[in-house]
């Protein structure tokens, strides 16, 4: 029945991507969106063009970026994966242990088929005559306890719910936020101001740090606090900073009157 679709779906157009951005809320994640895109190709999912699908999806992400739409991380992960898949499909396969581009495409196609199958199954399931909607049970059951399984009506759900509620109550009541010891910027400014009085020339910033190293939370916070403190002091014109390159040590010295901005 798809034989008539001579010209298969057009190349990813901006219109499609725009539409997708508009209805983004309607999707249950990136796989769901890929499935919707796949259906647009109007072919059986087993014969779908994964390459074309990847292009459509990447166009959507580009469009979302253009309109500065914040995409959830899993949409971006999918985009990255599809870009990778595309490159694997387009360039000759390197011989290695990695799955081939075709394998990856087939795996994606399978996932789409499986998801579509479940969506169709869900629709069929919900279309069945349902108790309380299409047919009804006795409205006033008589308390005869015919099953005799238990005198008490307690379901596993009740039991688990009770434990969950208990747990939540208990966790809530003992929640204590441990005091966090962090080095404050104010302390760092004070400390640096004092120490700088003793330092004549360029000195590496890390040498100003208090003992204890930077491998503890306090240590790391003191590193951060001291760095921010030097920026504060530099802004106030009290120190000068120097760094010879990215990630190289930062040097600090007292501001000279003649170099003040």
């Amino acid at each position, binding site marked *: 029945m798809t034989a008539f679709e001579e010209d298969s779906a057009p190349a990813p157009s901006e219109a499609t991507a725009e539409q997708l951005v508009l209805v983004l809320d309607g999707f249950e994640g990136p796989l769901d969106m890929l499935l919707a895109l796949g259906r647009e190709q109007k072919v059986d999912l087993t014969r779908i063009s994964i390459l074309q699908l990847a292009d459509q999806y990447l166009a959507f992400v580009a469009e979302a970026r253009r309109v500065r739409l914040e995409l959830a991380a899993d949409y971006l992960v999918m985009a990255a994966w599809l870009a990778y898949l595309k490159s694997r499909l387009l360039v000759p396969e390197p011989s290695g242990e990695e799955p081939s581009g075709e394998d990856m495409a087939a795996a994606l196609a399978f996932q789409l088929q499986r998801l579509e199958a479940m969506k169709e199954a869900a629709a069929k399931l919900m279309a069945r005559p349902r108790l309380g909607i299409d047919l009804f049970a*006795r409205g006033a059951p008589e*308390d005869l306890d015919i099953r005799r399984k238990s005198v008490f009506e307690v379901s596993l759900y009740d039991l688990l719910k009770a*434990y969950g509620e*208990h747990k939540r109550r208990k966790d809530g009541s003992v929640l204590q936020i441990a005091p966090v010891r962090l080095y404050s910027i104010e302390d760092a400014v004070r400390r640096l101001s004092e120490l700088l009085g003793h330092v*004549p020339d360029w000195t590496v910033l890390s040498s100003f740090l208090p003992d204890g190293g930077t491998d503890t939370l306090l240590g*790391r916070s003191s590193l951060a606090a001291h760095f921010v403190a030097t920026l504060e002091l530099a802004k106030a014109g009290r120190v000068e900073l120097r760094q010879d390159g990215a990630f190289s040590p930062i040097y600090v010295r007292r501001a000279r009157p003649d170099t003040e901005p």
Partner: protein
Amino acid sequence: MIQDVTDNEEIEARIGRLRLLEALLFASADPLDEETLAGRLGEGADVPALLDELRRHYAPRGVNLVRTGAGWSFRTALDLGPQLRAEEEVSRKLSRAAIETLAIIAYHQPVTRAEIEQIRGVVTSKGTLDLLMEHGWIRPGRRRETPGRPLTWVTTDHFLDHFGLETLRDLPSVEDLRAAGLLDSRPVLLGLSGGEEAPARPPAPAEGPEPG
């Protein structure tokens, strides 16, 4: 019985109304009065006649259509009462305290009464454990080898049976409960742990600033 029928169409309409009446009375939680029924059956329905036909149809059966003060409803036949209620034991709702106690025993077993009270933060009323034991959900376990040698409580096979569990290991863990939404997770303070995960880094220069 069906005297005023003139043609097949009318018979069909009457049967349709009888079926709807039957279903309405069956599905309703409360007795229905004739006015309500007339509203549901629509124009042209002779409700008293239909009710009478239905009542007579059910009269010899195990279920009867009866009229009470409030209206009409199906009830099981009076004469079957003794057979239906042969093992009558009205089902009761278990109290919240009992469910919670049972849950704690299930998750923390073997557990002593004092421990249950400590976990729940309230005194366990005398009847609660008795009730759970009477019902066959819990039984005494081994005594704890601590001062006073208190009795511990454990769940029974009947407990597993009742709740459709094969083994105790199939009880969802706290993590499972949280994932299923049965436990709202409280806010987690991230990044405040110690330095274990700090990347290896050359130690900070040890030499202090040379005083000038």
